[in-house]
């Protein structure tokens, strides 16, 4: 069993109740509506986080959270000048006009879109929930064909022009990398096997939602591709991954064929790729797509909210597997929206990828007695 030393975000990553109450009493109509909705939904989550915390709540409150400040984007773009020696040269700070460097502009805009997404949809102030400045490093290395999150900053190569274009070209890839920071802050989820595949999938989910929100797309209009436009014309493929149809994103004589499964019966057991983190992420990716599609409308409004609250659930452990995560998403849906359409959609989405969440009694950490909550098991449901 994994014991976490403490949960850093037990009670203060969301709007503090006293502020919400103040807004509900004194704010404009729109502010009041949002605050009341926040108060209504946050109480349960707050209680659960307190129940799941390993430390007394009083010790967790070490600093005030700046949740009710105006949107506080703090972006810094560095030009690595095709070197790999950090820190490079800062070329654009928050509020400064664009330069003629397209990679720097795309990185700046992508960070902004991702910040705005987490702020406007989830009320999250940056990666750490506390206004952490967002740093992107462009033109990393020579012909460098990768983008990565190194634990504190986003790094983008220019691509090799043979297989890959510059990695800032896709807003969902920028959102993907930044979301790794959110997962690390909230989880973390180990970057290995199923927990790592969940880590990857969460980055794909939020990365895709960032792009869908910028484009104003509903679930049925979105392409659900990750990294569309990243390949050069030399590659037989349209993207890095397809959340809608895992395994169909590319089939190229150099890159090979997209290896992602979309159902547990095709789960890939491997030591490659950190135990298949970019491979088996196709399964939870498709589950999210199915949930969002069944619910319809903007995917970030309900499906995205359910996934985000699941990520923040104190029962997420570093080695959380697909089944445990599925169960937590069902519980999140129930807590957010009650028993109904949303819970059914989440349960069915997982079932269609071979993970069955059924209702049995389990214990909730820190609570006395046994409550009825969904549990998860491998199912053999037919693929959709």
């Amino acid at each position, binding site marked *: 069993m994994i014991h976490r030393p403490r949960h850093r975000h037990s009670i203060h990553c969301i709007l503090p109740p006293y502020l919400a109450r103040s807004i509900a009493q004194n704010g404009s109509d729109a502010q009041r509506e949002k605050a009341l909705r926040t108060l209504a939904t946050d109480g349960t989550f707050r209680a659960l986080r307190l129940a799941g915390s390993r430390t007394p709540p009083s010790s967790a409150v070490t600093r005030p959270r700046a949740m009710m400040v105006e949107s506080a984007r703090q972006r810094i773009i560095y030009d690595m000048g095709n070197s790999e020696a950090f820190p490079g040269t800062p070329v654009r700070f928050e509020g400064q006009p664009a330069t003629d460097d397209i990679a720097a502009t795309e990185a700046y805009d992508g960070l902004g879109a991702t910040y705005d997404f987490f702020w406007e949809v989830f009320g999250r102030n940056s990666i750490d929930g506390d206004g952490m400045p967002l740093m992107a490093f462009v033109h990393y290395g020579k012909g460098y064909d990768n983008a*990565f999150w190194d634990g504190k900053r986003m790094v983008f190569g220019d691509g090799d022009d043979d297989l890959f274009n510059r990695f800032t070209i896709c807003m969902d890839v920028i959102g993907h990398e930044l979301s*790794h920071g959110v997962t690390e802050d909230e989880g973390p989820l180990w970057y290995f096997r199923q927990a790592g595949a969940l880590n990857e999938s969460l980055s794909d989910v939020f990365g895709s939602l960032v792009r869908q929100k910028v484009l104003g797309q509903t679930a049925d209009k979105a392409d659900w591709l990750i990294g569309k436009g990243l390949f050069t014309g030399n590659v037989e493929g349209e993207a890095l991954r397809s959340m809608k149809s895992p395994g169909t994103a590319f089939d190229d004589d150099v*890159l090979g064929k997209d290896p992602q499964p979309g159902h547990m019966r095709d789960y890939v057991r491997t030591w490659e790729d950190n135990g298949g983190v*970019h491979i088996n992420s196709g399964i939870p990716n498709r589950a999210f797509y199915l949930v969002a599609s069944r619910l319809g409308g903007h995917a970030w409004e309900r499906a995205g909210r359910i996934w985000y609250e699941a990520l923040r659930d104190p029962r997420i452990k570093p080695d959380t597997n697909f089944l445990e995560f599925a169960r937590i998403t069902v519980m999140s849906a129930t807590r957010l929206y009650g028993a109904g359409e949303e819970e059914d959609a989440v349960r069915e989405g997982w079932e269609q990828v071979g993970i069955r969440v059924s209702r049995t009694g389990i214990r909730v950490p820190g609570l006395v007695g046994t409550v009825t909550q969904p549990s998860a098991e491998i199912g053999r449901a037919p693929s959709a």
Partner: protein
Amino acid sequence: MRIELKREGGPAYFPGLARPRSVDLERLPAEQAEALREGVRAARFFEQPPVVGATPRGAADTRRFTLTVEEEGRRHSVQLVEPVEEPRLHALLELVKQAAKALYRAHGGPGGSRGG
């Protein structure tokens, strides 16, 4: 001398790029082969530990490359975790990547015209 390059990590799993690439120096132009031999010597490759560098905590999508060098009956593997900060190891890795790509284009790659 024979050098094998294996690539792991990155933004997605590409089966074609994950396959180890082998560089036989006998098949390279003399100048390039000598540059690689000198690169191995300069990097003191056979004295390097099995793993150089470490993935930072919380990092994702980073890459690592495993170089295996066989020469005169001895064999040694070193996993290089990006970013490779030691300049001579970095230079050797770049040389091997270029050679593997060129060989793949000329001989091994399907279609013979492209290579990662």
